[in-house]
């Protein structure tokens, strides 16, 4: 069974201070790796899907990358509105396993 681990649990940044979030998993293989953003009191909002090692996707200040054993979510010059919990998930035979998320706080 796949185990998904996210680090760090919490991250506090100053506005404009770039950083990366990590998502690692135990079962390698070609399957979907998903990143979601979750704001307090709301359901997860889809950000990216990555399928194969070496793949990268970008959206505004966010860039997701994938290796065989982990994925990174890079945040460039973050703004306070990027504050949220970022979740990653893997699918195996349609069954999803989520990490516990990284809570990002961006101070102005």
């Amino acid at each position, binding site marked *: 069974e796949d185990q*998904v681990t*996210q680090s760090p649990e919490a991250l506090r940044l100053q506005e404009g201070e770039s950083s990366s979030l990590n998502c690692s998993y135990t079962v390698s293989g070609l*399957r*979907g790796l*998903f990143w*979601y953003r979750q704001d307090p*009191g*709301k*359901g*997860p*909002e*889809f950000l990216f*899907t990555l*399928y194969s090692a070496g793949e990268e996707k970008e959206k505004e200040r966010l860039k997701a990358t994938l290796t065989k054993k982990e994925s990174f979510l890079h945040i460039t010059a973050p703004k306070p509105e990027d504050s949220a919990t970022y*979740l990653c*998930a893997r*699918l*195996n*035979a*349609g*069954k*999803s*396993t*989520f*990490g*516990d*998320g990284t809570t990002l706080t961006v101070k102005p």
Partner: protein
Amino acid sequence: EAGVAQSPRYKIIEKRQSVAFWCNPISGHATLYWYQQILGQGPKLLIQFQNNGVVDDSQLPKDRFSAERLKGVDSTLKIQPAKLEDSAVYLCASSLRLSDQETQYFGPGTRLLVL
């Protein structure tokens, strides 16, 4: 395009009472999921349906939880009787089909507090 709808948004009950949650997936989505999210944790899959059939319910506490998806569209999740540890957010998600590469889209969730 309308998203995944859930109701109610909030529910407060006492332990040993019953509660039911409703979900309407995105139109045309064949696969529907129910998750439980405890504060500070990621969503945990409870049950998934493909049309009106159960694909996986291995993590559903079947002694107290039940779910159905009649006619392959709307779904209800029921807890009877509720325990204190059932306090959580119950999320419904849907995807176009059952696939390891298919994106799941989530509803806003139902926040349950069991006293």
